[in-house]
């Protein structure tokens, strides 16, 4: 009888079956035993920063194109070696992600397509205060797989937050963050909450509004802020906003109030770095 052919003994067959079986078992257990998704794509600058903090760099495939924009994000050169995306479905699919992270205010059509095509999409809510930041960190950690690193980051953040003391005072100084063209954020926004933690009264509570409000110069002059932050003074390229900086009324206001600069990148998105913004405000309060 010939050797190759019918001579494939039962023993060989069993061995082959076992090998194949082991292979698949190994593959399967590999997934379960892995530390979660290995190809993480973030399409929003806020989630970029959280992903960068919690996930190992080699598990991150792509961050949004604003990740290295100094005015939106503090990541800076972290993005070297990473692909930067503009949040379109095509780009994301081309990267073969196993996890897509964005905020719940992300562009709905893109998110629907990705979900329909079966990609896991994590939508994190916008953080309105430091507790929300903590919640988001936890949510993200569980999606990417909790490990030492994530626990360390979350642990440190929580410790720092709980160690903050909110000064109790009947007369709180008034802080206003006066954004471009007169925009201010009201109650229940990250900026207001952080400022309140630092011991300030905020424009949201003074004028009793939530959401955004356009406050004209007259109004600003009458509420007499003790501390003011002009969000747009860093802008180099000229626009109407830069013209407004030279308005005599604003100049008059600046004579009567203290001006500080809080880089937008710190508190545009809720992240552990927002604590730096808190510290800046706390220092400013001491100085007042």
């Amino acid at each position, binding site marked *: 009888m010939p050797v190759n052919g019918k001579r494939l003994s039962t023993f060989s067959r069993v061995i082959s079956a076992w090998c194949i079986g082991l292979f698949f078992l190994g593959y399967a257990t590999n997934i379960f035993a892995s530390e979660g998704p290995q190809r993480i794509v973030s399409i929003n600058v806020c989630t970029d920063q959280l992903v960068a903090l919690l996930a190992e760099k080699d598990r991150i495939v792509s961050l949004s194109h604003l990740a290295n924009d100094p005015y939106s994000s503090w990541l800076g050169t972290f993005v070297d070696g990473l692909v930067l995306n503009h949040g379109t479905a095509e780009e994301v699919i081309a990267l073969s992600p196993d996890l897509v992270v964005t905020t719940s205010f992300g562009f709905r059509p893109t998110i629907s397509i990705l979900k329909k095509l079966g990609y896991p999409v994590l939508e994190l809510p916008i953080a309105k205060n430091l507790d929300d930041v903590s919640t988001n960190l936890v949510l993200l950690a569980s999606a990417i797989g909790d490990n030492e690193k994530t626990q360390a980051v979350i642990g440190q953040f929580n410790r720092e937050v709980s160690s903050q003391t909110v000064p109790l005072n009947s007369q709180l100084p008034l802080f206003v963050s006066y954004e471009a063209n007169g925009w201010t954020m009201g109650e229940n926004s990250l900026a207001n909450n952080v400022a309140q933690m630092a011991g300030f009264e905020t424009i949201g509570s003074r004028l009793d509004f939530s959401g955004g409000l*356009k406050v004209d110069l007259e109004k600003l*002059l009458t509420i007499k802020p003790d501390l003011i932050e002009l969000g747009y003074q860093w802008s180099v390229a000229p*626009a109407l906003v830069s013209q407004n900086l030279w308005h005599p009324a604003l100049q008059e206001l600046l004579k009567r109030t203290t001006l500080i600069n809080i880089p937008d990148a710190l508190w545009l998105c809720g992240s552990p770095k927002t604590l730096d913004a808190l510290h800046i405000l706390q220092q400013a309060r001491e100085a007042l």
Partner: protein
Amino acid sequence: MDNIKNYFFLLSALGLLAVLLFIASLMIGSAGTGFSGMRVMFDQVGPEVFSVIMKEIRLPRAILGFTVGASLGVAGAALQGYLRNPLAEPGVIGVSTAAALGAVIAIYTGLSVVMPLALPLMAIGGSLIVIFLLQTIAGSGNVATLILAGVAISSLCGALTSLALNLSENPFASLEIVFWLLGSITDRSMSHVWLSTPFIVIGWLFLAASSRSLDVLSLGEETAVSLGVNLSRIRILVISGTALCIGACTAIAGVIGFVGLIVPHLMRPLVGHQPSRLLPASALAGGSLLLCADIIVRLINFDTELKLGVVTALIGGPFFLILILRLKVSHKT
């Protein structure tokens, strides 16, 4: 002549209205409205800040409300007299949008930082180019051609303005399109007043110089020539006057439409339909109308600012439609 007496009475009444609205405008603001509101404001902020609010915020706003409104009114009246068409208006024929494009280029390329006069000058330049274009394309006569050309130019300039804003590196630039296309005089300063008023006043003078010839132009171009009207002189006066007024206004307040359409139409029956008399009446009425619209903008408390151009469009849009319908009917008879 009774006619002239009525006319001066009208001008005095309009002048009084403008003065009253000017004063009202000074008394309205987010910090304190009316006598009692302003007293509270005075107590709250102290005399120095009060004076800053009045001199640096409310005063320029009231002045601009009048000068911009008056310019829009008189330019509309002059264009209608010159083109012998009641539908002509700087907004409709694309002159304002072109001015906005010029202004946007001046600001967002940084030119106006280096040379502040670049702002009104480039806006005026934009207007001039469009008016010449229109003369070439639509020539004289055909209403439909003129308005279609104007619509095309207006759309093009609007698109180019948006493009220019998008190309700016400033992240807020593309949001500012709302200001340029809908107009606003909120938080303008006295420097805007100084920057625009000389051009506006010269524009008014040019248009005033053309006024009597506009009367004669009612008889048609050839008859006007036979009566000694210098057609090219009138063309230059009307075109430059309009460009100066509209350019300077748009440079600091954005595009505000329909005032130049509504005001002359309302005033025309009151001045015996004479183009020359229509100019001063439209100026005063236009100034009053815009002051009024700006007061409305401040009395309606929105979280986001209601733009001036929205108020004038809400009134003027339906008005324009009715006007077209009426003209269509009258041409049929």
